[in-house]
């Protein structure tokens, strides 16, 4: 039953006791505001972590082959599978924009020498895209380009430490290196933050290695860098699709784990991300819970204060015939009205503050701070609920006050 009179009573009481209402309201505004802001900032922190890890997470997928471990389509176990240059075009045409870079690699160890020095190095045949997959940084000259690749030119791009070893203090660019009796021109020097072993690598066009040393178009590996716009989950689907296509092409059983394998850091990264998310997932509720508890305590205190302040009024009302129930009702409804209204104000201020913060705190690892409105609404409801319970006990006590005792003080 909607009783207009009781609402009139409550709004009059709020209206005529503004200090009291503001005091209660302030606690709620503050609690919800803090809750919203802290939650938003925690979310911003999580956003940063996500972004950070995806940036450093290599979005490269490596495909490599072995021997079949399951019979399939009438073919026997133990078949050696090789990827070749055509697979690069095949994958590119099948997956188009989902793939950013792709290159085939062949790795061999060779003895390299020039006029002064010699040494054993790992030579890797790669395509022009490989620079981006490996994130090798050119510090002198250039990387292998498409022309080198298509012409099967005898050129090398060497790691910084190779340059140090073979050329001592001099620049290696435009100088020649003897590789198993064939002269190669050095076109570039790179550094790589992947460590010393990476900087001891020597890159040559895959096609050159194939032409001069292997005599076929076989590849050891295919390195694919997927479009960074893909989410982790989408990337995992992409990996599955690529392997399935290739397995189909090479007549490998779809569940054969050995013939065609993928090495990717997506899965492990995802796991790491999940770990961080889950620890933030513990932290965020703790923050929220703490703020809420503070808010609840604040409301409880104020409710006790309000009931105390209204003791005389309660006594008068009881003397005039107010039932205990009606006393509890007016006190609780007043607190609910105030909490709801001011909770909403706190929400607005909090969301507003988060928007004002925006991207200005990015250097403190807070990206796009924001809150799920439904969480804040639930928090407000929890606060209202808790405030009601907190107010209920004093209100109940007040309703039991004997009017004479209430009337005696004053």
């Amino acid at each position, binding site marked *: 039953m909607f009783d*207009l*009179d009781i609402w*009139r*009573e409550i709004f*009059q*009481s709020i209206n*005529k*006791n503004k200090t009291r209402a503001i005091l209660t309201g302030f606690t709620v505004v503050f609690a919800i505001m803090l809750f919203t802001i802290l939650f938003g900032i925690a979310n911003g922190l999580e956003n940063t972590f996500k972004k950070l890890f995806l940036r450093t997470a290599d979005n490269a997928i490596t495909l490599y082959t072995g021997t079949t471990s399951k019979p399939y389509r009438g073919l026997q176990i133990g078949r050696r599978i090789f990827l070749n240059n055509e697979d690069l075009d095949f994958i590119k045409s099948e997956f188009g924009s989902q793939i950013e870079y792709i290159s085939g690699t062949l790795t061999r160890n060779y003895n390299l020498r020039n006029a002064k020095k010699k040494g054993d190095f790992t030579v890797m045949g790669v395509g022009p895209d490989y620079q981006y997959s490996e994130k090798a940084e050119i510090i002198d000259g250039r990387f292998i380009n498409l022309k080198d690749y298509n012409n099967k030119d005898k050129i090398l791009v060497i790691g910084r430490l190779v340059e140090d070893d073979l050329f001592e203090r001099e620049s290696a660019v435009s100088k020649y290196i003897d590789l198993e009796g064939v002269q190669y021109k050095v076109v570039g020097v790179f550094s790589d933050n992947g460590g010393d072993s990476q900087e001891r690598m020597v890159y040559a066009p895959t096609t050159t290695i194939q032409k001069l040393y292997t005599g076929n178009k076989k590849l050891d590996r295919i390195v694919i860098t997927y479009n960074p716009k893909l989410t982790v989950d989408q990337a995992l689907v992409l990996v599955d699709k690529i392997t399935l296509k290739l397995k189909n092409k090479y007549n490998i059983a779809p569940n054969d784990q050995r013939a065609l394998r993928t090495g990717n850091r997506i899965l492990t990264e995802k796991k790491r991300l999940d770990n961080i998310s889950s620890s933030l997932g513990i932290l965020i509720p703790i923050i929220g819970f703490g703020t809420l508890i503070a808010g609840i305590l604040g409301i409880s205190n104020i409710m006790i204060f309000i009931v105390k302040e209204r003791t*005389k*009024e309660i*006594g*008068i*009302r*009881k*003397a*005039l*015939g*107010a*039932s*205990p*129930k*009606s006393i509890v009702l007016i006190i609780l409804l007043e607190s609910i009205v105030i909490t709801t209204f001011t909770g909403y104000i706190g929400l607005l201020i909090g969301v507003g503050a988060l928007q004002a913060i925006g991207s200005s705190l990015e250097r403190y690892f807070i990206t796009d701070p924001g809150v799920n409105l439904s969480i804040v609404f639930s928090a407000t409801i929890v606060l209202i609920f808790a405030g009601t319970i907190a107010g209920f006990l004093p209100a109940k006590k007040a*309703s*039991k006050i*004997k*009017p*004479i005792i209430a*009337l005696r003080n*004053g």
Partner: protein
Amino acid sequence: MLEIKELHKSYPIGDSSLHVLKGINLSVKQGEMVAIMGSSGSGKSTLLNIIGMLDQADSGEYILDGLLIKNLTEKKAALYRNKFLGFIFQSFNLINYKNALENVALPLYYQGMKRKDRQELAMFHLEKVGLVDWAHHLPKELSGGQNQRVAIARALAANPKLLLADEPTGALDMNTSYEIMEFIQQLNDEGKTILMVTHEDDIAHMCKRIVRLRDGVIMEDSKIDQVRAKKNV
């Protein structure tokens, strides 16, 4: 109207207890105006509170208008207070954020009367105490005498069978006291039964009967010749 037999009441004080009322017998008829007198601690306020159902007796019988008042639940006590009793307090006990009209209308609100009706009725009673022009003023904007008149209007609003006054003139100067007493006498003339606690002799003599309490027992209970307040103003 009012029948009290062997009423006892004691209050616990620490481990012992203070026996405040030690067997009160009192009978009040319709239309009487009774002053309950006694020094402080004599139990006069306690008696009034029990009669007003603001407090409960330990033992004894209390019958109000043929109704046995015993073991009341809070809810029932509230209902009876609203229906049968009107209170006038020494400190007025008006709700400070409500204006005169709203204060007078409050018991009617608890009777469940419609807003329009109770405002009309409240205005009628304010008119009776001569405060129509002050209907929309807050208690703090009124003098003590005016506040007590608002309180009287409020006590009358629910048309109670019994009017209980606890030192109604205790906070007022003499002239205002007599004004208020004149009102109360008028109400009695119109047939209202009135019970009043006071320690002032002149006020007590404006009633029709004086009951003197000492140490929780009635020492004296006598009808007197009423002194009209009007002459003294």
